């Protein structure tokens, strides 16, 4: 039976892992290469690097970090941030990334999803959607870019469906309102997108406890759950999250394998 994935996310800035409340007030939480290795050893099903300031500062993702991580980390590795064109895609994949997530660049260059999925396959194109409540949107959610700093006037559900048509293999859905709050995922948003697209949806933003992970799977149909800070500071471990999920009838991969 297919496991529900638990994904550890590392927000990376200048080669160091950081995570702040709503992406502001960043705290240094260590070396991403070591952390990724640690996570894969203790049972994370995937690792995700997001270069959170990359677009804003027009920096490229750190190929060195990826390449070092890929040498010792034998679980899928997703990298996002600062991906502007096909050559960025190729550079990240060649460094050792398995999937590339695109967000702002897909909004400003919608052809990038199609071009990249045609070129590298839809399995490696992750459409990252940072959504925020907006009652004037048909679905009630609007797509934002640049770590939530810019609004786009694009409806989140429409954007998700368009992403699927253009060849995205997966959606990484972050609720910007919940992100960093540790008060739980946005169930309504996750359910809305998950029910209406045929590809896997990763819930992101707001995980504060293993119970939040259980809830977003059982109540909102998430295919995978992603979290950053709750793992970094040792508040909860991958194992405690998986135990809680398993106790609630969600099939997960054994941390020992």
């Amino acid at each position: 039976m297919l496991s529900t994935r638990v994904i550890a996310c590392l927000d990376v800035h200048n080669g160091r892992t950081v995570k702040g409340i709503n992406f502001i007030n960043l705290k240094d939480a260590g070396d991403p290469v070591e952390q990724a290795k640690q996570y894969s050893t203790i049972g994370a099903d995937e690792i995700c690097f997001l270069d959170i300031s990359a677009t804003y500062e027009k920096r490229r993702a750190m190929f060195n970090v990826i390449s070092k991580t890929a040498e010792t980390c034998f679980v899928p590795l997703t990298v996002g941030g600062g991906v502007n064109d096909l050559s960025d895609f190729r550079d990240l994949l060649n460094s050792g990334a398995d999937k590339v997530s695109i967000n702002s660049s897909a909004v400003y260059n919608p052809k990038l999803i199609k071009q990249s999925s045609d070129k590298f396959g839809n399995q490696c194109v992750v459409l990252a959607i940072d959504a925020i409540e907006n009652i004037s949107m048909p679905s009630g959610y609007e797509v934002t870019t640049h770590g939530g700093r810019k609004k786009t006037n694009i409806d989140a559900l429409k954007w998700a469906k368009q992403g699927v048509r253009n060849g995205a293999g997966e959606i990484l859905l972050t609720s910007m309102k919940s992100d960093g709050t540790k008060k739980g995922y946005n169930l309504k948003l996750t359910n809305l997108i998950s029910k209406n697209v045929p590809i896997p949806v990763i819930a992101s933003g707001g995980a504060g406890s293993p119970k939040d992970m259980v809830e977003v799977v059982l109540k909102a149909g998430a295919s995978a759950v992603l979290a950053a800070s709750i793992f970094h500071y040792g508040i909860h471990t991958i194992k405690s999250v998986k135990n809680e999920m398993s106790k609630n009838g969600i099939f997960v991969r054994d941390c020992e394998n």
Partner: protein
Amino acid sequence: MNLVIIDYGSGNLRSVENAFRNSVKINKLNFTIQVTNELELISKADHLVLPGVGSFPDCKKGLEDVKGLVKLLTNEVINKRKKFLGICVGMQLMVDFSLEKQRTEGFFWLDGYFKKIVQKGVDYLGRDYKIPHMGWNNLQFEYKHPILENITENEQFYFVHSFALESKNTNQIIAYTNYNQKIPAIIGKDNYIGVQFHPEKSSNSGQKFIYNWLKWCP
């Protein structure tokens, strides 16, 4: 022993190379590993690995762009009986054809073709079955095989694919996975094996599989 990972401009070559290098190092095996598309090196190799991510037609085209490679592979694997591992699209290429985008011929080493997975219904939690089949899943073994040594049916491997093998020839299926339907996960015959999952991304279980394949003497 000399292992060649075939580079034809497709695939997550680095990940495959890293995972094989790790296995060789950890298990202190006497293997050299080369990543190349040079026909001479491929024909000198003892063992061959064909990775593949992306679409079937793109991977086939990538192979065909290296002049003489497809013909050489068939000669090395079928006639010279070199040990071979096809991973994901590399596995899909081993059969007759795939219907991804358009009908594209494979190597004809094994019987059958790849068809898009169609899913109906919901899973045990009421969720729709999403395509691609993406994530960690178990294997059900059809028979005992050296490449499954020390691996149990409780262990999981990382899959990401939207097409599955259709074949009447069930003798060539070594293991299935289950995603609302039985999907061939390991296929093979004699000296050649293909896996739908990614052993290079399947953590400890993947490392066990790679080690088993490396020491397998068909």
